[in-house]
């Protein structure tokens, strides 16, 4: 695995199905975050939004799904996301990432990733960074 990864190596990009409010509700139920702004249209409009918008932590979680499918669930040591533009129901999001660095620390082989979640408009929904150990 270590020899297959170089700075610039891309993971296999994932184009997800269009986001649905059902996706948001399922995530909210699983996580315990019941903020109505993600599923209650009247509430969202009262707060100044045209409709409910995506739960940021859902897409962060799907990005983590994508990254751990590539480099292994037990190998992740750091995972960070920063949100940019909102994502909305119907958005088709693409999850992708690239090896930004390879290094050895305390006898462990590590790779750092830079990741993005992009909307069908080309806009960036979130940026991500992760560190994985690469077992021998």
């Amino acid at each position, binding site marked *: 695995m270590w020899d297959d990864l170089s700075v610039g190596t891309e993971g296999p990009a994932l184009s997800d199905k269009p986001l649905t409010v059902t996706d948001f509700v399922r995530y909210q139920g699983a996580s315990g*975050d019941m903020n109505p702004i993600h599923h209650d249209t009247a509430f969202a409009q009262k707060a100044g939004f045209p409709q409910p918008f995506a739960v940021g932590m859902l897409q*962060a*979680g799907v990005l983590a799904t994508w990254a751990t499918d590539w480099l292994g669930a037990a190998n992740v040591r750091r995972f960070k996301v920063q949100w940019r533009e909102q994502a909305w129901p119907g958005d088709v999001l693409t999850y992708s990432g690239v090896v930004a660095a390879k290094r050895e620390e305390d006898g462990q082989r590590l790779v750092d990733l830079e990741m993005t979640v992009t909307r069908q408009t080309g806009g960036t929904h979130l940026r991500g960074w992760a560190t994985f150990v690469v077992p021998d």
Partner: protein
Amino acid sequence: MDRLIEGNRGKPFRVVVEEGKVREFARAVKSSNPAYMDGPQATSPPTFLASSTFWQRPENSPWGETRLNWHRILHGEQEFVFHGPPPAAGTELTAEARIHRVYEKEGKRGGTMTFVETVTEFRDSSGEMVAEARSTIIETGQAPQ
């Protein structure tokens, strides 16, 4: 927002990484990775520990009496650090949350923005830190566009 909340700590609370919650969470983040579904040995997904904040009691929160205007709150950043593999199903952890930093920036459209960085530490039964969750929320001067 009151900057004096910086340094506030919540009362430590117990977090059990439950097998069924791990599976439910993994499915919700669109995973079919067997590592998350593997019964008692299942690994928890990287963002799983974020859910612990929604199950804590008021005294576990470092926010104290601070009331947030949720119409003006954005989740800016979220980070998880693991000092080994992410905790497996069945692991019992003790979590403690604190307000790490409060600072302001001038926004382009939303007036003054207040950033609040919260850190939650997760320790195992021997007191060893196994994970940290760092969250930055932003309170905007007006409803975000």
